[in-house]
């Protein structure tokens, strides 16, 4: 049982980093971005390209990577965020100033999703890629097996989530983001530059997506559909936790991760997505706005 819990937490970590950005974009730009999964993919592949320039991922005791990958991750976060800003400036912003409907923005994000995925395929091909082929021995703690890389995944996610919480609750920009998410019009008359907040939403959301992409890459593999495959659990986490709350999305990610882990352990991995849908249906039946969400 403890092993299932740990596996679920590892799976939830990837979902968490993705869903935070998805939730921020949903609440601040007022549409669910179906291209968010592809920003996870592009982040992973940009880091792969930078690592290729270094020629090595390096190695730090016990881990399958070292400083070259960490530096590549930071560079990829910056470049991927720039990519998101360019996409916003050239597509979504043009639609916002023309008062495009939410459904138009959703369809545009579908288009961006397809475009990004195919650009990745064009440059890197359909086959999976790996940062390293080093096989990691699992560590054992009280009968629980976990690799050092997975420990890093969970640790980094916890640190980033706590950092995000402090950012949102303590900084002026974080409070401005919460204000814009609730009422952009009131935020404007209050002196908040909503465009500035939107830019930082993309930067933070995409940087977290990049971390998710790189961590997926060094724990499992990189492939052009990796982000797309995370889209369902990410949206499920958003619905389960509550669309209007970033903290709800975090709780949703944990529940979806655990549900998937339990399904793989006690049923079969084929039912993983079914478990996600069952969880969505149950929450929609009993808490239509999500566990901690409010009526939008």
């Amino acid at each position, binding site marked *: 049982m403890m092993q299932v819990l740990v596996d679920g937490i590892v799976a939830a970590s990837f979902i968490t980093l993705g869903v935070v950005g998805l939730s921020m974009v949903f609440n601040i730009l007022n549409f669910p971005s179906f291209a968010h999964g592809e920003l996870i993919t592009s982040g992973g592949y940009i880091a792969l390209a930078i690592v290729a320039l270094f020629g090595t991922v390096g190695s730090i005791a016990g881990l399958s990577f070292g400083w070259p990958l960490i530096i590549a991750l930071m560079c990829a976060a910056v470049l991927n965020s720039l990519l998101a800003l360019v996409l916003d400036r050239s597509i979504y912003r043009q639609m916002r100033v023309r008062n495009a409907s939410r459904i138009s923005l959703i369809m545009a994000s579908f288009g961006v999703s397809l475009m990004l995925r195919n650009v990745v395929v064009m440059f890197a091909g359909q086959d999976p890629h790996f940062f390293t082929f080093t096989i990691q021995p699992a560590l054992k703690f009280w009968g629980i097996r976990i690799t050092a890389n997975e420990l890093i995944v969970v640790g980094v996610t916890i640190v980033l989530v706590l950092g995000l919480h402090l950012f949102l609750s303590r900084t002026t920009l974080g*409070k401005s983001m919460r204000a814009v998410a609730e009422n952009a019009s009131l935020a404007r008359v209050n*002196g908040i*530059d909503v465009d500035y907040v939107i830019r930082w939403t993309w930067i933070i959301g995409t940087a977290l997506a990049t971390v998710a992409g790189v961590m997926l890459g060094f724990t499992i593999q990189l492939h052009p559909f990796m982000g797309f495959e995370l889209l369902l659990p990410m949206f499920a986490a958003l619905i389960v936790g509550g669309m209007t709350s970033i903290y709800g999305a975090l709780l949703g990610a944990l529940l979806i991760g655990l549900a998937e882990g339990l399904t793989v352990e006690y049923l079969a991995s084929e039912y993983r997505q079914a478990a996600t849908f069952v969880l969505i249906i149950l929450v929609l039946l009993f808490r239509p706005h999500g566990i901690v969400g409010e009526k939008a």
Partner: protein
Amino acid sequence: MTATVPHLVVEDLVAGYVPDVPILRGASLKVNAGELVTVLGPNGAGKSTLIKAVAGMVPVTGGDVRVSGKSIRGIATHALVGAGVAYVPQTNNVFTRLSVEENLELGCICDVPRTRERIEETYRLFPDLERLRRLGAGRLSGGQRQMVAVARALMARPGLIMLDEPSAGLSPKMTGVLFQKLLEIRAGGVTILLVEQNAKAALAICDRGYVLAEGRDAFTGTGAELLSSTEVGELYLGSKARLAS
């Protein structure tokens, strides 16, 4: 010379939400520094549109808006706070998911280093808010929310504050408390433009008033003059009765 320049001048303003369908059709008004001026009018006269157009929230297609002699037409809404203009909307005027103190902090976004000092000053003007500071603004009563909204607007130390029907939905007692606060704010040197539906209460505290009808300024005068005007009474009551009676 500067002392004679009105704080706010709205000149022949044409504005509306939909192109070619103006709500305001040449509205004009002047507010001198330190005055409390109220804008009245029946439903659909364009009172809220006027205040929103000044705040840059409704497209302006004609006329001009000047603050201390400088045109603010075309300035982005968020930049108006830096120009010393604060606006308190009629509804949804607090961030309900933020605490009272967080609401106040966001009012000082143009001068972040002075936030703490201004919050302390604001608590002196609104002592009740200090007690409620940790509470989510969504849990406040209507009157408390209006106080938070006004207090937040004052955090930026504006020269001019515009309020859109602040008494809407408030009890007469709470309206009295709120209007008393407005008088205190005016006594502190802040110019106030008050759009109100509650004509009697607004005219009782204002220095001057404007009555809008069909998107234009139809009457102007002191509070006492407008209260005793049969024309204004007719516009509101549909008879020759005076509002004061």
